[in-house]
């Protein structure tokens, strides 16, 4: 079973290759796969027929099944089971599938580039249907169900250039997935009630479920909605005629033989257990017969051959579902036979239409004339199929229909007479549209029509039709070949009965009914031109499609109205809305439900906290009202440095260290990035806007209120009580926070460094904006005193002449290189003290950063702090020596550092896996080196963090520093830095 399923999907995947090599003859190759599956299925028939369908999977003599675990936690398993129902439908899927694929080889043009993908979808579809009917797990069935919807969408929309195809595909998708969603709700309800998602188990406990009453009624009704939407019953029927925009082989396969049978299959599957539920009969029998009549009537009004068939299919699907809906064993028997018969004749008819369209260029019966003479073989095979559809004796369709009448006559419910009459009328309409189809296609029209220029189809093109028609003929004469399958399945519904499929059952009531329907049908056909009494009726019927259109339109309008009101384009407005929601909902909940309130208050843990708090508050308030931009920035920094003090006093040395370093680097970045922005942009911003202020204050109060309640609500001891021991004995480190970052919560940290790398990439992309990141600039390629000319002069007009002169002398002296690229700067920009101090400090700071990194496991520090310290060292070099100095001091590109860091961190995770341990397992290696030392493997991860952080800082300096320097070079600092007027002449000008 699984081999067939897998083979179909693998074939689908390899289609592009096959078709590149063989062009359209590739269809012959892929047709082999379902054909082989078909033969395999025939060999399995004895096992299927000898099994007892009521047994659970795995029991001896249960139907063949495959079971695999998939998601045991959700009770979902890859269970497949082939009982007689699945096998019967599968015969159609694989048999018709093989023939349709075979047919495609002559239907499409050889040079059509799309056929590879087309074949892939067709074969994948066969696979999905195979999975659908054999799945025993109803969730798995649902997954395949949805796959068929998606493939149907893709196949209907095959002619992407045509608006009809796109629109029909979308309609079909919306309707079938809508039905699918409704069905999913039903499936989940039923599965939850049954305590199992295995169809066989759900059906085994059906009696208990039905006894639950309304719950099960609703669940089953929801599932039926899915089934009738898939099988195109009223009121969902209109998607199927629309789906005729698909290439005809698709219509023959998906929309006649296979996909629309999924709904039939599901009804058949559930009928043995749930036919007694309250909504079953009205939704299957009632809607089914209504659909049969509407479809049959609409078919009589069509001129497009394909649409006649499409409405005919709608009608027949209604018919079959109604019969399965009867719920008796005779009905199950007859309906299964009817399903097979329908698959055979409808596929033939569609393929025939395909040939007519292919060879004549039209499907309009008002244009076709005399085709019967040009294509006698086609006319004969099509005639057999149409006669089978109409219910002409000795053909399989007739045999099946007789069995249906027999079943309907034996019904003993209140509505049985109505059902019988409905079916009779439906059959008469079927007769009539069969005639309309056949004579429309092949007859000679009274009105003189221009003779069609066309050739007869080749035999190989016809071959699939011949096979299908032969089957219709053969099974009509020897129906006992498929009888065992139908009998075996009907046994599930209270059989075994005495039903038989017979080519001629004698002169009985069923035969009389057949005669009546044939006679009526001939009348309908004869009367077809007379009157259009059905016009009001037709208006009523088309309204289903109109209601759909209208509801889609209403949805569109509502969506646009809401979008127009809410998405006004202003980010501040959006943020305001979000914040109001954030304010109102938690506050409403907090105020309406009980909120605990703490009993134990303290003013502060330490008197100094009061002072620090006051400083932070002052900083925050002044940041809002500061008249100058840099003052505001500095005030925010004040709050940051205040946080450093709070962390230090509260017993959080790591935080204090990290915040201190970050605050410093942020301040430098701010100055670098915002130096270009003119002062005037800050004017008028400090006026207090009271609306915003009230919202902001309310939000802050709400957060604090909830925080207080949260702290008061605490009942358990904190989770981190176990951390000290975990850190020391399992993580081999004394610094609990650091061990948490690189070991206990290492995934968080890994996620974080990837975010850092994304941010670094973003910074570089925004600043370089399409310009090349460039090669590294070397100091000896740059003319001395050329960098930063005119932009950031230390000495302005008021600066003393002597000062400048000393600076110039220092700058031009070649033997006092404190920095590698110090002399590339213009004299005004240089500072001897800064250069000397930088020279003295740089290496010390670097060594300190490595020390902080390596000892971070036991003392405050670690990768973050170490990386930031190293970044500060770079910052000093850049500030002292300019951008050439930066590129000289760090010869590795930031991308390399960041990528290398992430790779190293990842390696620290993967290597333990290779050693057979869990991911990110930590090892400790003890060694002696002037004392006992421990090397802990999570340090490698920390080195990765160090590199990423260093890379980030380097990227910030290079982007916000160097690149902005070179963009603003030669201009006043507040000029626009447009690329357009930029006159960069490159280095060394």
């Amino acid at each position: 079973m699984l081999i067939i399923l897998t083979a179909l999907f693998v074939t689908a995947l390899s289609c592009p290759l096959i078709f590149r090599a063989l062009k359209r003859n590739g269809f012959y190759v892929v047709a082999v796969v379902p054909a082989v599956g078909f033969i395999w299925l025939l060999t399995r028939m004895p096992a299927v027929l000898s099994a007892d369908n009521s047994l659970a999977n795995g029991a001896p003599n249960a139907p063949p099944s495959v079971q695999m675990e998939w998601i045991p936690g959700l009770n979902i398993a890859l269970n497949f089971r082939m009982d007689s129902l699945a096998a019967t439908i599968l015969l159609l899927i694989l048999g018709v599938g093989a023939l349709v694929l075979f047919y495609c080889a002559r239907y499409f043009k050889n040079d059509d580039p799309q056929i590879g993908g087309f074949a892939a979808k067709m074969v994948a579809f066969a696979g999905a249907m195979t999975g659908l009917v054999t799945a025993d797990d109803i969730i798995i069935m649902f997954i395949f169900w949805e796959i068929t919807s998606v493939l149907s969408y893709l196949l209907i929309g095959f002619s992407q250039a045509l608006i009809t195809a796109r629109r029909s595909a979308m309609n079909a998708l919306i309707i079938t997935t809508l039905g699918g969603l409704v069905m999913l709700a039903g499936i989940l309800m039923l599965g939850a009630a049954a305590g199992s998602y295995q169809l066989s188990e759900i059906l085994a406990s059906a009696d208990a479920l039905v006894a639950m009453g309304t719950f099960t009624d609703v669940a089953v009704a929801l599932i039926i909605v899915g089934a009738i939407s898939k099988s195109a019953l009223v009121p969902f029927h209109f998607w199927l005629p629309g789906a005729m925009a698909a290439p005809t082989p698709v219509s023959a396969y998906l929309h006649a033989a296979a996909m629309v049978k999924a709904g039939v299959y599901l009804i058949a599957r559930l009928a043995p257990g749930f036919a007694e539920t309250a909504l079953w009969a009205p939704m299957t029998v009632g809607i089914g017969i209504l659909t049969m009549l509407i479809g049959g009537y609409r078919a009589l009004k069509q001129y497009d051959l394909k649409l006649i068939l499409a409405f005919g299919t709608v009608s027949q699907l209604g018919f079959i579902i109604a019969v399965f809906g009867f719920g008796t064993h005779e009905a199950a028997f007859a309906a299964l036979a009817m399903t097979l018969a329908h698959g055979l004749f409808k596929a033939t008819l569609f393929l025939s239409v395909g040939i007519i369209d292919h060879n004549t260029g039209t499907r309009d019966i008002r244009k076709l004339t005399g085709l019967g003479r040009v294509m006698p073989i086609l006319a004969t095979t099509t005639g057999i199929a149409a006669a089978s559809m109409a219910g002409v004796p000795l053909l399989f369709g007739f045999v099946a229909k007789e069995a249906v009448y027999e079943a309907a006559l034996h019904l003993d419910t209140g509505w049985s007479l109505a059902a019988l009459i409905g079916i009779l009328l439906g059959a008469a309409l079927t007769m009539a549209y069969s005639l309309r189809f056949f004579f429309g296609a092949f007859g000679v029209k009274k009105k003189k029509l221009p003779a069609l220029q066309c050739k007869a189809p080749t035999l190989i093109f016809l071959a699939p039709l011949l096979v299908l028609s032969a089957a219709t003929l053969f099974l009509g004469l020897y129906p006992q070949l498929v009888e065992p399958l139908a009998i075996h399945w009907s046994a599930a519904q209270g059989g075994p009965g005495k039903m038989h499929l017979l080519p001629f059952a004698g002169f009985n009531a069923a035969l009389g009914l057949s005669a009546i329907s044939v006679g009526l049908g001939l009348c309908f056909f004869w009367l077809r031109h007379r009157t259009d009494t059905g016009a009001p009726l037709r208006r009523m019927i088309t309204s289903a499609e109109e209601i759909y259109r209208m509801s889609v339109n209403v949805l569109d309008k509502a969506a646009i109205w809401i979008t127009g009101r809410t998405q006004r384009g202003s980010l501040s407005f959006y943020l305001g809305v979000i914040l109001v929601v954030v304010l109102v909902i938690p506050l409403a909940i907090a105020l309406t439900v009980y909120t605990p309130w703490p009993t134990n208050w303290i003013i502060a843990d330490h008197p100094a906290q009061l002072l620090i708090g006051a400083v932070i508050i002052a900083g925050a308030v002044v940041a809002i009202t500061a008249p100058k931009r840099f003052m505001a920035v500095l005030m925010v920094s004040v709050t940051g440095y205040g946080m450093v003090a709070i962390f230090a006093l509260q017993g959080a040395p790591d935080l204090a260290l990290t915040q201190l370093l970050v605050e410093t680097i942020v301040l430098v970045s701010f100055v670098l990035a915002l130096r270009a922005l003119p002062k005037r942009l800050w004017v008028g911003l400090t006026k207090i806007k009271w609306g915003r202020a009230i919202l902001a204050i309310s939000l802050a109060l709400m957060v604090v209120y909830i925080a207080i309640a949260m702290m008061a609500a605490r009942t358990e001891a904190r989770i981190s009580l176990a951390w000290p021991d975990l850190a020391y004995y399992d993580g081999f480190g004394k610094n609990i926070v650091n061990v948490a970052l690189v070991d206990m919560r290492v995934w968080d940290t890994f996620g974080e460094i990837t975010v850092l790398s994304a941010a670094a990439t973003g910074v570089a992309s925004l600043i370089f904006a399409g310009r090349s990141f460039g090669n590294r600039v070397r100091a000896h390629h740059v003319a001395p005193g050329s960098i930063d000319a005119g932009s950031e002069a230390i000495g302005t007009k008021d600066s003393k002449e002597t000062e400048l002169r000393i600076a110039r002398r220092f700058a031009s002296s070649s033997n006092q290189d404190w920095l590698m690229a110090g002399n590339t700067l213009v004299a005004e920009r240089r500072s001897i003290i800064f250069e000397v101090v930088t020279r003295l400090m740089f290496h010390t700071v670097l060594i300190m950063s490595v020390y902080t990194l390596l000892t971070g496991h036991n003392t405050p520090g670690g990768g973050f702090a170490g990386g930031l310290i190293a970044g500060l060292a770079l910052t000093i070099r850049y500030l002292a020596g300019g951008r050439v100095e930066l590129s000289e001091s760090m010869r590795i590109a930031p991308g390399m550092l960041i990528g290398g860091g992430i790779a190293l961190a990842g390696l620290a995770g993967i290597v333990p896996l290779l050693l057979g341990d869990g991911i990110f397992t930590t090892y400790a290696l003890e060694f002696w080196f002037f004392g006992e030392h421990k090397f802990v493997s999570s340090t490698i991860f920390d080195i990765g963090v160090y590199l990423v952080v260093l890379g980030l800082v380097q990227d910030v300096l290079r982007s916000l520093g160097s690149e902005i320097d070179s963009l603003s070079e030669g201009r006043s600092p507040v000029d626009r830095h447009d690329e357009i007027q930029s006159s960069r002449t490159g280095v060394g000008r």
Partner: protein
Amino acid sequence: MSVNITFLVVTGVLLAAGFYLVLERTLTRVLLGIMLLGNGINLLLLTSGGRKGAAPLFNPEVPADEYSDPLPQALILTAIVITFAVTAFLLAMIYRSWTLTSADELTDDTEDIKVSQKTAYDEEEDSPVAEDTTEFVDEEGRPVREGEE
């Protein structure tokens, strides 16, 4: 647990100032607001860890509940570094926006405004189309036939 009033007041002020600034249209002020919010929330996390304790450096003599809570500390450490990355990113954005528009302002999104003024009519869904009675036509509707058969 005992609640530190000073911390709560400071948190409140930082958050109020932060929310106020992020609601502005000037990008630089939005960024400052985000930084203040970051500090405020970090302080809130720290407050939720309880009273001050020993620095979380393992010492076998110290019982586990005498350390200051390391869990919020790990969270805050991550938050500090992420805020740095976000700040750098926003700074780059401010600079970029300045080079493009010579302004430090959020402007309304013209695409959004266009969407809000759209009508319900959609070419793809609502335009009337003629029905085809054959697949074998080219884009202009002329019949195409295969030569070889």
